[in-house]
């Protein structure tokens, strides 16, 4: 049943998926041409500055783009009220929630692959093997971190969507994020606390550096998957009693 539900999402929303991925591809391709165009020729004195702008831009487009893409099916269901329709079929709500987690995780992967592929035309046209930005962006770990970040972020926000619906859920998550950010800024205003936190972060980073990269990757994946599992259980609990 789970497979049928996931397949249903892709079958029913194939057109919207293709359009969304197409938009992401074009956006990232344009960004790639822009970055490589500015980096072509001998590396200038401002090369580092360009890199510091280019990397966050890629990060923003990639993470935001794939995050939005991973919510595509949720958005379509919310708009067309197909949640109610599918809950009227002989399917348990638990299965509907699980399927949504799986299809969103798959969508995030697909979106990141499309975003990576979008960098290739510029890469080949400029022959830009010297580009520092691209040598970093084509490092597989970079994309794995993106993927884990999106899965992690979705795990935090999905229970809110299943509890309140997508629009109200997004609103709630944004409010919580703003409150947390404000609280963080207020806390960091105290120099002693700020120093303590920075010391802790430095210590944590030092400790992480001592861990083997493979172990670190597996550990991060494990923690993210555990979080997804817990999040899915919470979402099931909410969705099972929600009025549709």
């Amino acid at each position, binding site marked *: 049943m789970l497979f049928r539900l996931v397949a249903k999402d892709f079958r029913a929303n194939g057109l919207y998926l293709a359009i969304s991925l197409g938009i992401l591809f074009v956006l990232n391709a344009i960004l790639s041409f822009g970055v490589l165009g500015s980096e072509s020729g001998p590396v200038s004195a401002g090369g580092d500055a360009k890199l510091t702008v280019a990397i966050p831009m890629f990060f923003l487009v990639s993470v935001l783009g794939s995050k939005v893409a991973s919510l595509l099916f949720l958005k379509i269901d919310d708009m*067309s*009220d197909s949640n109610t329709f599918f809950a009227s079929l002989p399917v*348990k709500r638990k299965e509907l929630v699980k399927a949504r987690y799986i299809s969103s995780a798959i969508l995030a992967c697909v979106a990141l692959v499309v975003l990576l592929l979008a960098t290739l035309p510029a890469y080949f046209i400029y022959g830009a093997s010297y580009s520092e930005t691209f040598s970093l962006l084509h490092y597989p770990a970079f994309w794995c971190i993106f993927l884990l970040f999106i899965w992690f972020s979705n795990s935090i926000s999905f229970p809110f969507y299943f509890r309140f619906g997508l629009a109200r859920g997004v609103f709630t998550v944004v409010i919580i994020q703003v409150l947390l950010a404000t609280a963080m800024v207020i806390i960091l205003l105290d120099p002693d606390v700020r120093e303590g936190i920075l010391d802790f972060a430095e210590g944590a980073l030092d400790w992480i550096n001592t861990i083997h990269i493979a172990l670190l990757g597996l550990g991060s994946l494990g923690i993210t998957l555990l979080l997804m599992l817990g999040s899915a259980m919470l979402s099931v609990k909410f969705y099972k009693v929600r009025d549709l």
Partner: protein
Amino acid sequence: MKSSMKCCPFFMTAVKIKVKETSMINTLEISNLAKDYGDFRLEDVSFNLPQGYIMGLIGPNGAGKTTIIKIIMNLVMKQQGQVKLFGKDHQEYEVAVKKRIGFVYDTPNYYQHLNLRQLKNVVAPFYENWDEAVFNGLVNHFNLPLKKTLKKFSKGMAMKASIAIAMSHHADFLIMDEPTSGLDPVIRREVLDFFREFMQHEDKSILFSSHITTDIEQVADYITYVQDGRVIFSKTKDEVFEDYALVKGGNDLLDEDTKSALLGVRSGAYGFEGLTHNVKGARAVFGDSAIYDPASLEDIMFFTGMKTRKVL
């Protein structure tokens, strides 16, 4: 049987009432259902639908018809009471009972970008009993285009498409929320004729809500009337028309005492018109000075709703 039904619409009711006396299996059993939304409350809703019958759920807009249907389908959570479908609890055996149900919305607006064939391909895998031949038969019967996107469907076509989707897995119980509202008279009749055809199989049942009382009068065997979240009555159609009557007479017959024999009354320059659910009692009060006419469902809804409207 089909032709005899067409020439004599009450034939089926008569036959079934006879069957009812010997064996009574309920397709739907609802007891003491309650749901509180704060500004609206569904209270102590109880009624049964025996297998092989059509039940019309009537009531004004906002009376609670859709909420009851959504609770039956477990789309809205009940706070109290019990719902049994085919003798089984609707939540405990949710998947099993839903396999035997065909559900039709009032406004089917999901997946408008797909065409009917694509929608069928999305829905069919969820039903083990999906019958392609039945689906194609219904598509032909309703003259529906398979390749046109659903957003280009008229309201009538969308409703017929929903019925085709809901019926293609050999459902035993058809639940529909306002299936005829907003349809033109030709398509409404087509849909009602389809109900009759569906009911030729004696193990099938239909529950449909509507505020178009003439539709209910035409096809329903049982009528459940809901008002302000409460069931006013749930009876066979014959019982309803036997119990209720319109009393008409001159204004001189009306005073506080005689008014109490009526459920609702309106008076004008030429006299009064009121509803009673106790014809014998009304005759005792008004005698032969008044006229006693059969009440239509619309009359019943209008006069029983008068109290509420006055309060509001």
